[in-house]
């Protein structure tokens, strides 16, 4: 990121580091899902990102293709709600990067914007429904602001990670309106949404991997 841009190899590193982080946090994600869901979010994401890591071992030809490979691998291995949603996230990200060999902050922001729109279209949820969007949308908002302010990429990634983490914590008091947790009604309040947790981790790993390389 010496050039204030993200390279193809850094994208691979990001996804692989996320795969590792998912594996490390598998029990945590599972336990969050036990509390207000069905206890599979950790295992699902881990199964999916293990398959992704396998596919990305040999690197990739370009950023868009790497993200598409990731999305396709998730689609056929994760299942549940997480599968289509994370698959859509990466496939829509891929679409936004078509033809690009490196990503500026503006590119990255546009990519996350497209990804977030994809997730919203797929899941028909909105902010405050206690889903992964409650981490994803604040992260996007932080990126947009950083982009307007022309912050250095590393700072922008850090801010988006903080915003995602904040958004994740803010899911605690919410009553879920989408996904399995919504069946619990008021009993869903008092817990972090597992999808918000895995999404916050995605931005944390982006900040760690991409801002340090």
């Amino acid at each position, binding site marked *: 990121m010496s050039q204030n841009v993200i390279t193809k190899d850094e994208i691979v590193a990001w996804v692989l580091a996320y795969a590792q982080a998912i594996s490390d946090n598998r029990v945590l994600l599972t*336990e969050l899902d*036990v509390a207000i869901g*069905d206890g599979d979010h950790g295992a699902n994401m881990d199964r999916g990102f293990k398959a992704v890591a396998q596919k990305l071992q040999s690197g990739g030809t370009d950023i868009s293709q790497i993200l598409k490979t990731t999305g396709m691998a998730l689609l*056929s291995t994760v*299942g*549940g709600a997480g599968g289509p949603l994370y698959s859509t996230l990466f496939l829509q990200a891929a679409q936004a990067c078509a033809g690009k060999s490196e990503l500026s902050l503006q590119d990255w922001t546009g990519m996350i914007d497209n990804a977030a729109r994809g997730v919203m279209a797929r899941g028909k949820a909105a902010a405050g429904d206690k889903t992964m969007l409650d981490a994803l949308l604040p992260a996007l908002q932080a990126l947009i602001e950083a982009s307007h302010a022309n912050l250095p990429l590393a700072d922008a990634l850090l801010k988006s990670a903080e915003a995602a983490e904040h958004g994740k914590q803010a899911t605690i008091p919410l009553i879920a309106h989408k996904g*399995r947790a919504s069946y*619990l009604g008021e009993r869903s309040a008092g817990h972090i949404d597992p999808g918000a947790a895995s999404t916050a981790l995605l931005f944390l790993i982006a900040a760690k991997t991409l801002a340090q390389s």
Partner: protein
Amino acid sequence: MKKLINHPDDVVRESLEGFANAHSSLVRVNLDPAYIVRSDAPIAGKVGIVSGGGSGHEPLHGGFVGAGMLDAACPGAIFTSPTPDQMLEAVKAVNGQAGALFIVKNYTGDIMNFEMAADLAREEGMSIESVVINDDVAVNDSLYTAGRRGVALTVLAEKITGAAAEQQRPLDAVAAICRQVNEQGRSMGMALTSCTVPHVGHPMFNLPEDEMEIGIGIHGEPGRRRVKLQSANVIAEMLMEPVLSDMNAKAGDDVLLFVNGMGGTPLTELYIIYRKANEIASKHGLKIIRSLVGSYVTSLEMAGCSITLLKMNDELATLWDAPVRTVALRWGI
């Protein structure tokens, strides 16, 4: 966690392998991607009936693959909707050139994965219809939930829809029957104990000896409320009341009464619930013309039950009675 398994990662695959070994005369099993099809598929001119969902609900859905019911079932990981490629391959394997119907339980994950599979299948030129089952009256069907869940009614829908397809009715007619079943059926469930997902390794919730959960789904989630343990008769009333008040059945109507076990409850107890449910339905003037009692839509080893009422008519009764030859439901052939 005490289970007859080897490793949590291998549960679904090994179970599927055992299923394939045991029932090779009725079904063919594909492991990657995972799906089960009836051994005589595809049947020319017949609408393919395809269902699927997370594993852990056995015999649903694989146990209902066969003549007169499902053409294919796609098992996901435990409590995890299957992936679109499974449905795509399954629907191709049962393609009799008359289109296919997806029977989908109403969960966000199932909806999305089946939707994506339908898109892919349509891209390959197939006609696909989907019917979403959402019979669980424990959940409000409002803007503020993912809608009512699909639970035990699914097995009735699969049986009746499968019979309609077996008569070589066209896709829209088959889908209409399935929708009719969904509109006319309601369910409500309860749990005495939690279940343990192999990957989790401990119970999903802790229920003291003198408490139970009312309004559970089939994924080990807690119910809508936790109350003191009650007698079987009171429990039957607690389940029948919301079912009856949500469905539009009036005195004189014919119904099918289905008492379903959650996996860990002995038949003896299901019949005690059935006895009371039968009495309550009769008091409401309903005529119970068909019955089903057993553990058909389960939640691993959870102890508990659900009650389903389906308002019947002559056509539904005829389709219910039609021959079926699957691992878990069989008569007439």
